[in-house]
């Protein structure tokens, strides 16, 4: 039983003709997915890919699917692995407990780390993340995911760089890749940090808007 309360669609016509390497690929759908994950929203996202429509139903930090948890991970893989031409987000009531469900964060980690992402899509992600402004990385107890998150050590490295240097240039980070496999690991990590809300733009500060904690950080960086 779904009661539709709101529907909106995004993406311009130009964003709907994506997928070749000579065109800029939009990942606006990830921005919206991120927001839903972050807000532990209830609703459904529908993604139009050239393999067909993909649906993610979520509520309070969980993905739901009648087809089971494997199908949920397959859906996330699908939207990571193929350009999305259009997407919409619908707020609706879900039937809850009786539907198979899986925690949103473990499902994203599974899709990122235990399934392949195509090389063309990896390159699209490189282009996408390279356009990001300077970002700060948040420290979170990611150990709770244990072996589901093989990128933990690299996450801590990136975090340390972020806090010691007041932000990380993702373009420079990705340029430091030593091999395609290295780039692949970096992209997996960046997707996870982005979707989990552990990456955000470094805030620009006006002189009268600097908190005492920011001033302390500035001082400590100089010692």
């Amino acid at each position, binding site marked *: 039983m779904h009661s539709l309360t709101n529907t909106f669609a995004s993406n311009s016509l130009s964003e709907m003709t994506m997928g070749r390497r000579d065109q800029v690929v939009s990942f606006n759908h990830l921005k919206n997915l991120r927001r839903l994950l972050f807000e532990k929203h209830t609703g459904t996202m529908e993604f139009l890919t050239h393999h067909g429509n993909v649906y993610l139903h979520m509520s309070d930090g969980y993905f739901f699917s009648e087809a089971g948890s494997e199908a949920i991970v397959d859906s996330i893989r699908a939207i990571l692995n193929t350009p999305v031409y259009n997407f919409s987000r619908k707020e609706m009531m879900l039937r809850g407990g009786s539907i198979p469900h899986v925690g949103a964060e473990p499902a994203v980690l599974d899709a990122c780390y235990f399934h392949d992402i195509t090389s063309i899509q990896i390159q699209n992600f490189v282009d996408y993340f390279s356009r990001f402004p300077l970002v*700060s990385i*948040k*420290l*979170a*107890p990611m*150990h*709770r995911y*244990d072996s589901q998150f093989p990128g*933990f050590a690299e996450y*801590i490295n990136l*975090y*340390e760089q972020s*806090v*010691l240097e007041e932000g990380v240039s993702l373009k420079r980070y990705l340029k430091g890749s030593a091999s395609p496999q290295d780039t692949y690991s970096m992209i997996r990590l960046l997707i996870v940090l982005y979707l989990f809300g552990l990456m955000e733009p470094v805030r620009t500060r006006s002189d009268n808007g600097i*908190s*005492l*904690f*920011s*001033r*302390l*950080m500035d*001082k*400590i*960086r100089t*010692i």
Partner: protein
Amino acid sequence: MMNKQIVKFVITGPVNAGKTTLIQHISDTAVISTDESATDAVAEVKKNTTVAMDHGILYVDSTLELHLYGTPGQRRFDFMWEILAVGASGIIFLVDGSDPTSIEEMKYIYKHFSEQLSVPALVGVTKQDVEGSLTPLEVSKSFGEDGVPVIGCDPRNKKDSKLLMLSLLSLIMQDEEEMAESEFF
């Protein structure tokens, strides 16, 4: 005349984890220590140990100071933990990753502080260069499902001392932002 603002951090953890060294690296002033000769089991790992507190100050400018208070590591001085925790904005827990006793003691200290204070906290796991030392990941599992952020560090290294301080400050700022958001949304 502008009021001086003082931010207070507590550095705690079992004996011989590096608390005094961390404060020495960050403080602009000579650290005031209350060291006494170790007489019990502590004497096996170090000659002197903190019995009341370590205190250091980092001066940002004439209007802002960071005061660092290091606690004694032994339970018999736990009355000092409560005294030193008053008014703290954040806590750093240091634990010797190479010593299982230190890790068990850490859990006790962590529980003690978390029952009294609700401020951002961070765990630093030291002695990562010692063979067989537990990694931050392994230590963090002992803090349960939700846990607390844990990073590896060597307080003898200034860069790592800075990293611990900056990490705690980042967590405090995150906490403040989340509180501000929850107030309005």
